[in-house]
């Protein structure tokens, strides 16, 4: 007859603790020393946790010119429980490390400039989070907020081969090579947009994390306008973008981190021309490990691609009447984020609100982050306890610890 949970053998305690939501694991660590040491002392903890881990969200506030240094965590199961009403519970989880102020060379004729150390949240891959400096300073870093470690990624060079404009950066993983890689898409231009003979070209580079260079790759991103930043999702080893340009071709484009090639995904076969062109009402997301498209052209549909790349596997899984809430259909875009435990669907609406849809009761619930702050970026994130060195498997990167700063600063510079 046991009197205390801590009397149970470590392997059983590991089975129990690894099933807790991320915040509860840390709460239990402060209950007693046995629990404090459990995750690090038990070799199975990390992999057991990963097998049970549910997806959370990381949120950065502030607009693109003034992104905040505080990054917040949202646990969707807690956030959508009725206890908290219509306001999303966010917790400041960590602050972006402070890098030295860097002078940038661009605009040299005007005396150059000084970047004010603004890093933006880009994406998360297998528990690692990727940030890059706003504007032209070429610095980026990868961190693990749970272990509080970070590594600086090799600077890319925007001024090589003439002026380049970075369109986006994405962290991804290649299973076959067991390596993390970063994709950079940039454009070069000849002339000015309003001039005759203006030419804009898109290029791609890949950097294997820990290697000594950024490599131009042969594969070229499509030259059509793609909402690189707001319409991208990471799915396994690919990053996918919805093409906002109303074009029959290039519905969804993806980059495969293993093959380092771009590919195309065609719309559902039943899509007519009108529907295919009406991209402004569409968005992409991931649900249950599958790519999906939301389309509120006529009514609000969610199409799920059951087999990646197979056009015939597009299935209209949900038909949602968004007018049920207010009497008027609600304009999107809606980005599906995840299924919740109770089968509800969590989506990001207009990039700055959360929506929880119950397919059984056919109910919508809108949750906001609080009107005071502008929502900059919301990124799906599944925590990992695996130390950075073990995740990245590279020897030559210096792993630094994120300083312990007050996550509740009175001001956020």
């Amino acid at each position, binding site marked *: *007859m046991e009197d205390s949970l801590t009397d*149970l*053998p470590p392997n059983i305690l590991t*089975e129990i603790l690894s099933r807790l*939501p991320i915040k*509860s694991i840390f709460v239990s660590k402060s209950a007693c020393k046995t629990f404090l040491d459990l995750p690090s002392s038990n070799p199975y903890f990390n992999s057991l946790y990963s097998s049970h881990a549910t997806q959370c969200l990381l949120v950065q506030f502030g607009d693109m010119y003034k992104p905040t240094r505080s990054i917040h965590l949202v*646990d969707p199961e807690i956030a959508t429980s009725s206890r908290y009403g219509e306001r999303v519970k966010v917790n400041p989880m960590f602050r972006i490390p402070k890098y030295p102020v860097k002078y940038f060379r661009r605009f040299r004729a005007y005396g150059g400039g000084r970047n004010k150390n603004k890093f933006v949240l880009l994406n998360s891959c297998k528990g690692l989070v990727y940030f890059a400096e706003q504007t032209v300073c070429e610095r980026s870093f990868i961190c693990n907020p749970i272990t509080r470690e970070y590594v600086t990624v090799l600077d890319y060079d925007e001024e090589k081969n003439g002026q380049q404009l970075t369109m986006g950066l994405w962290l991804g993983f290649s299973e076959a090579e067991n390596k993390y890689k970063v994709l950079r898409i940039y454009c070069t231009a000849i002339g000015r947009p309003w001039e005759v003979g203006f030419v804009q070209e898109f290029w791609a580079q890949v950097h294997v994390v820990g290697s000594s260079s950024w490599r131009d790759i042969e594969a070229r991103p499509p030259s059509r306008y793609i909402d690189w930043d707001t319409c991208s999702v990471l799915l396994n080893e690919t990053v996918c973008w919805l093409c906002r340009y109303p074009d029959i071709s290039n519905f969804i484009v993806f980059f495969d981190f293993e093959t380092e090639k771009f590919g195309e995904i065609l719309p559902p076969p039943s899509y007519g021309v009108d529907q295919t062109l009406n991209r402004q009402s569409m968005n992409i997301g991931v649900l249950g490990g599958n790519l999906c498209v939301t389309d509120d052209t006529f009514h609000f549909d969610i199409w799920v691609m059951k087999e990646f790349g197979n056009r015939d596997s597009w299935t209209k899984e949900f038909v949602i009447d968004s007018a049920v809430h207010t009497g008027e259909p609600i304009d999107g875009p809606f980005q599906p984020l995840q299924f919740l435990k109770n089968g509800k669907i969590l989506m990001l609406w207009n990039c700055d609100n959360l929506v929880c849809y119950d397919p059984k009761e056919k109910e919508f619930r809108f949750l906001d982050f609080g009107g005071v702050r502008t929502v900059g970026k919301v990124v799906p994130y599944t925590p990992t306890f695996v130390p950075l060195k073990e995740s990245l498997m590279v020897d030559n990167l210096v792993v630094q610890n994120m300083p312990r700063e007050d996550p509740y600063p009175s001001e956020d510079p």
Partner: protein
Amino acid sequence: MAAETGTPTTLTLKSNDDERFSVAESAAILSVTIRNMVEDGCAGGVIPLDNVDGKTLASVITYMNGISAIPGVGAAADEEKKKSFRDKFLSDMDFETLADMVLAANYLNMSCLMDAVSAKIAQVMENKPVGWVRRKFGIENDYTPEEEAAVKEEHKWTFEGVETDDDI
């Protein structure tokens, strides 16, 4: 008592406090420990389970019978039935009973029971504050006040959004 082909075999399981239980072999071999003992030739006699008391063994046998009565592996409807059986089975258990169950599952090497009970304990613990967890699970606070403050400070972000003690 050698098993004849087609005749279901019954095993006798003996707890550490000498209680004996009859159970169908097909249900009992959900426990890898018991299965190994049967393969080693214990089927003829009584299988002694030195690390399980009678009360817990009775519950485990109820579980074994319940789960093995649901046919099919992998079919969604059967998985649903197994899930509701597990939920009902564990629903009224207090912590001490759950602890006995998980220890028995560990000793008997029954992964499905182990998973179910671990998940249940985790479900009880989740999103509860420290004080509540300590009280409910009989955990002794072996931190000094300074140590505890330091640990909490380190993980400050985790304490918001978790119910405060006043809410319980």
